């Protein structure tokens, strides 16, 4: 083995190069990431999960939800929408200003029934000329930045997910497979506690063609005592329990749902601008309040 030193050196360089690329550089980039401020409301984002939701993250992990559900929204591009809010006092000169940039909009309908979209373009520079021309003659416009992509058109989120969304996840579970829908924004998409509980107990009763297994292990089927439980699921059809019985969620079901409802990656951040900003998160935690 006269070239053993060379082989060792080559292997060392190859391994340290990949370590530097996959561990060291990301650590330098994002290792000290902290709460950021949302735009424009300047709320702190993200907030650490507390109580039930923090325990629910462990339930999510132990049940292996990550094998079928991702928590990452992709984004292919970005579009800029220009809305005409007000044609100003001299509507005809506003129309002329619009027509100079977009000749096909030179018709009276353009400035009636406001607010109306007058441009939907791929680059913000392309909208600037129009905005400048319209505001110069007294018209008012609003410029909206709209992320686009297949995940966003499926309704899985308003913007792409970024590193900031995960900084308080102790086991980051972005997922690798999408047998089920993405859950990065499930807390804002399906914010109904009872819907979530019923769906965990009997997925097909809520989503007709669902392929999700029923997580009945999270629920307790018991005889109705003197008084029926107020927490019992309201079930109909095939999934309803036999007469005299009721289905009650266990602590684990409550924790898991609290976690699901806490999944909201839609705060507008610097690195992923979106306007108009999605509605603010509900301030009350319906699950904890129960």
């Amino acid at each position, binding site marked *: 083995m006269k070239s053993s030193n060379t082989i060792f050196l080559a292997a060392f360089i190859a391994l340290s190069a990949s370590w530097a690329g996959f561990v060291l550089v990301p650590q330098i980039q994002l290792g000290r990431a902290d709460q950021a401020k949302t735009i424009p409301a300047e709320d702190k984002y993200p907030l650490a999960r507390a109580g039930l939701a923090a325990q629910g993250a462990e339930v999510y992990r132990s049940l292996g939800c990550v094998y079928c559900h991702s928590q990452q929204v992709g*984004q292919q591009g970005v579009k800029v929408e220009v809305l005409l809010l007000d044609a100003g006092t001299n509507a005809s000169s506003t129309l002329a200003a619009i027509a100079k940039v977009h000749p096909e909009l030179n018709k009276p309908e353009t400035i009636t029934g406001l607010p109306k979209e007058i441009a939907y373009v791929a680059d913000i520079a392309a909208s600037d000329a129009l905005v400048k021309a319209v505001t110069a003659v007294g018209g008012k416009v609003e410029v909206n930045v709209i992320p686009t992509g297949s995940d966003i058109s499926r309704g899985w989120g308003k913007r792409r997910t970024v590193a900031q969304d995960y900084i308080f996840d102790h086991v980051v579970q972005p997922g690798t497979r999408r047998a089920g829908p993405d859950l990065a924004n499930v807390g804002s998409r399906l914010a109904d506690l009872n819907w979530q509980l019923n769906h965990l107990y009997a997925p097909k009763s809520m989503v007709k063609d669902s392929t999700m297994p029923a997580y009945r292990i999270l629920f307790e089927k018991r005889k109705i005592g003197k008084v029926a439980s107020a927490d019992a699921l309201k079930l109909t059809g095939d999934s309803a329990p036999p007469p005299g019985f009721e289905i009650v969620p266990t602590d684990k079901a409550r924790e898991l749902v609290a976690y699901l409802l806490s999944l909201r990656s839609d705060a507008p951040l610097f690195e992923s601008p979106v306007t108009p900003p999605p509605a603010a998160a509900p301030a009350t935690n319906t699950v904890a309040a129960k």
Partner: protein
Amino acid sequence: MNADPKKSSDVTNEAEPTAAMTAMPVWLVALMVTLLFLSAWYFDLYGGWFEPKVFSPYVSVADVQRFQPKTGGIAETVARGKKLFSDNCAVCHMETGVGNPANGCPPLVDSEWVKSPTATRMVMLISKGLSGPITVNGKVWNSGVMLAVGDSLPGSEAEKAEKIAAIATYVRFQFGKIAVETKPAQVEAIRASIKDRTANFTAEELLKAEP
């Protein structure tokens, strides 16, 4: 085994493998240099130069910056309204708008009063305060009195109107999920119509002004 004698002799005639150094073919060097050049070029175009704030489809910080919400318009008003809300309203309504039952202060989150179609009654309410019973989200609140916070804001009438407009915009945006800016001119008009009033409003009067 009917091995072809001619073929087997070909095999034996092949040169023995050697372990000596040989020069790398020129085409391989050229290919590697080309690939390195192309990958560096691609990285420069789309890589974002290891900036942690740059994610695809953006390619540089300047690119992300161009797509930020423009100052002015609702974004700026909401940010200013948030600060004014913290200073003037949050002591009772809380920063999160959940209200405080201990001092009879109703919630703002998803309240039908916040979600009214225009900001008229909200501006009246902030300007002159409120006393008497008020029903919020199906619950009657009767133990608290809201002071005339709007009238007691510092500054001239125009400055007060501007501040009330920012607070109303923020409250409607944050707690009512209504992204409509309330304009200072609108507030001044409403306040001019109620300027001689000194008593607090009641819930019925507000509902009469804006059903």
